[in-house]
């Protein structure tokens, strides 16, 4: 097992202290009658401890039972609205939902805050302030579309988007309608290329890995490259990212690393329940290894043993990804993600644990349709 650089220890300790403090504040908000949402205030009655007095640090969150994602399905959705946010404009975002009731998350301001924090990690050289954006990802009741739009606006740009219904894509895949899936993909790419070639000064883009690939193919069919579109910065996510794909994308689709091709791509990991985990810079020297770091203290990712979800695995070892969300408007203690990966060590930029090699959790991977868009 690798050991942590001793020079980092003060930064790690400070981050831990900040996380402990933040945890106590957030738990107080969510379990206090004046501020908490109906769901947690009701759940509090079932707990065998008092969160208001017995959560004194992050580790105390282990006292909570495992968060069940079914709690997020069905209504009334208002049970998730914080008591002191009742009068604020509220959004609901969904995840899943190809069949059955999707999971819902209510949001007042979280998506803005998460993406503003993320914005600070983007290099202005490739994501120029004032540049316009293209959101090449799912539309509909998803957080991503509004979040990217806000990111663009926060950076002084305007975001264009396309129509893309991932639920329909999943249905087509399940039915084996591959020809129609390909046609639908073309339809999405056609929309994107139409926008990109209409003089909108688009410099930045969000796209899933598959759509980046399809976009590059679509451009090449028209005798163009990604560089010809004027795009210089891409943040990508939404589906599984592998080092091999990243290498392929950088070397063959973009024509080289950012210094040569002029196109910078940063992988991210996130979902509707959490903010956006950024990646450590991805380089050929590190074999395009992708390590994600959650936006602590608002969200925490941990890599835990497959047998005991309260037990960390060693650095470099494989485990399941456990997610904790700690924002003033949403509290999720210990949600077991559908992913697994390797535990990564803290480093200067993010003095807390990361996760690399994220991929579908092996026990459920075969039954899940992932990475559809």
């Amino acid at each position, binding site marked *: 097992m690798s050991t942590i650089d001793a020079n980092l220890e003060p930064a790690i300790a400070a981050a831990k202290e900040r996380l402990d403090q933040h945890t106590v504040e957030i738990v107080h908000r969510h379990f206090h009658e004046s501020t908490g949402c109906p769901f947690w205030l009701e759940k509090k009655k079932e707990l065998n401890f008092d969160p208001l007095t017995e959560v004194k640090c992050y580790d105390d969150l282990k006292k909570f039972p495992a968060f069940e994602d079914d709690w997020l399905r069905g209504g009334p959705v208002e049970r998730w609205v914080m008591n002191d946010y009742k009068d604020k404009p509220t959004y609901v975002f969904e995840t899943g939902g190809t069949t059955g009731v999707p999971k819902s998350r209510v949001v007042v301001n979280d998506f803005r805050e998460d993406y503003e924090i993320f914005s600070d990690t983007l290099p202005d050289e490739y994501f120029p302030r004032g540049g316009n954006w293209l959101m090449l990802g799912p539309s509909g009741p998803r957080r991503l579309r509004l979040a990217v739009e806000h990111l663009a606006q926060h950076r002084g740009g305007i975001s264009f988007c396309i129509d893309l219904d991932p639920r329909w894509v999943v249905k087509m895949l399940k039915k*084996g309608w591959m020809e129609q899936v390909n046609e639908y993909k073309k339809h999405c790419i056609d929309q994107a290329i139409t926008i990109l070639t209409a003089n909108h000064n688009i410099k930045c883009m969000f796209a899933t890995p598959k759509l980046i*690939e399809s976009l590059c*193919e679509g451009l090449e069919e028209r005798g163009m490259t990604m560089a010809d579109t004027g795009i210089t910065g891409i943040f990508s996510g939404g589906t599984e990212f592998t080092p*091999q*794909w990243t290498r*392929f*994308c950088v070397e063959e689709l973009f024509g080289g690393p950012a210094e040569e091709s002029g196109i910078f791509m940063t992988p991210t990991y996130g979902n509707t329940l959490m903010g956006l985990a950024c990646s450590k810079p991805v380089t050929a020297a590190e*074999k395009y290894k992708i390590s994600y770091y959650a936006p602590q203290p608002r969200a925490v990712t941990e890599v835990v043993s497959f047998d005991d979800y309260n037990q960390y695995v060693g650095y470099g070892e494989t485990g399941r990804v456990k997610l904790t969300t700690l924002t003033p408007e949403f509290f999720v203690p210990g949600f077991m993600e559908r992913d697994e990966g390797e535990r990564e060590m803290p480093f200067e930029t993010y003095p807390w644990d990361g996760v690399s090699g994220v991929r579908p959790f092996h026990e459920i991977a075969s039954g899940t349709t992932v990475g559809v868009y």
Partner: protein
Amino acid sequence: MLEIPVVRWGKPYESLETTEVTHFNTNEPIAKVHSANGGLVTRDMRTAQKARDTLRQFSCKQLIDMVAKAADYFENEELPMGNGTQTADDFVHQQSASTGLPQHMCRSNMKKNSFVMRNMTEILDCLTRGLDLEIFSRGYGMEKRGVVVSFQAQTPVLGAVLPSNSPGVHTLWMPAIPLQMGLVLKPGSSEPWTAYRVASAYEKAGIPKEVVSLYPGGHDVGGALLTACSRSMIFGSQKTVDQYAGNPGVQVHGPGFSKIFLGDDCVDDWEQYLDMMVESVYINGGRSCINCSAIYASRHTEEIGKALAEKLGPIEALPPENPEAGLAAFTVPGMGQAVWDMVKGDLAKDGVTDCTADYGDRVVELEKASYIRPVIARAASPECEIASKEFMFPFATVVECPQEKMIKAAGPTLVGSAITNDMKFIDQLTDATNIDRLNIGPIPTNRLNWLQPHEGNIIDFLFRSRAYQMPEEKVAELV
């Protein structure tokens, strides 16, 4: 450890992702195989035409000669394999170790593949109905009867998503190179051996290596290959067959549901045909689409079932190196039991008799793998669900069915062997569109005549016959 790269138009490509090919029972690693991603395939296929252009610098005859030479290399020589080399014996041992197929079956599949490579002239002569191969090369030409014909290539390359469990099927893509079409192969995850060894033998025989691509990888690679190649073949389950049904660019090879039909005029002499029935069910571990999965007869079905069970029921699972081994292992843990549970469910239904019930347990569990010993069922009518089932081990149902209802009841049938001299029945069988390959007489379903097309003529798949008119003086030049 042996390390096998992706091959992109003849050039090795080391991926950042690899998978291990392991021994089917001990999990001991045999080779590390680099995994492509779908995008690589799509990207490379933009230059697929180069493969055909390169091959058209040779005549079909020259390519046939090279393939014949490659047959010898494939069958006998030590050839480059990834970062090492592989002898013919290594090939047999590695293939058996990763697929669970007995070694003697691997060797016989190897011979089958080299036979096809060696006899390509005759095979293509039959597949083209004797046309001059120059017509396929140039796209048009003069037929022997003095008529201009045109066969237009529909693709510069043939793609194939290959299986892991049936090393005998590789004969199907072998005509591509002599027909001046490149090869784009996705080898099966536990059987990379044949595709890589053939490519190696081809290269040694002088076929330019840049006309072959090999993309081991996951499902995205298969999907990309099928989308990017305008003509490709895939091997899979009924689900795969249904998925690609009606797609003119994809030739699907799925379950065969091959059958034997005993005509009323011969059924009373069924004992004479017992060995032929046993061979049809049992050969090659019962894994092939050409293995018989149902025997139709209007009477004596109980005796036939009992006699087949007596021959097949006692067969034991033997280690793959044993020359008597006749069963192939299920290499996915738990798979043998899962398949057996399905069979058991069918056997328990009304009208079905388990003829092998008295021959001991059918499932043999090993450390990581399992075997299913032969199962013979008897169904009182074709309506019994088991009558239309096929499994990846020696399995057949003896179905009682009046002769006049046999053809309709049989459903899709890759190989039908009809034991009859009744001309009316023979005519009906000949006209039956649900039967692909038809054998008249006691020919085991597995005995393929290589001079006959298999599941769709590859010439029809790769070329389009079309009108081609020329001025008389040009026609005269063709004579």
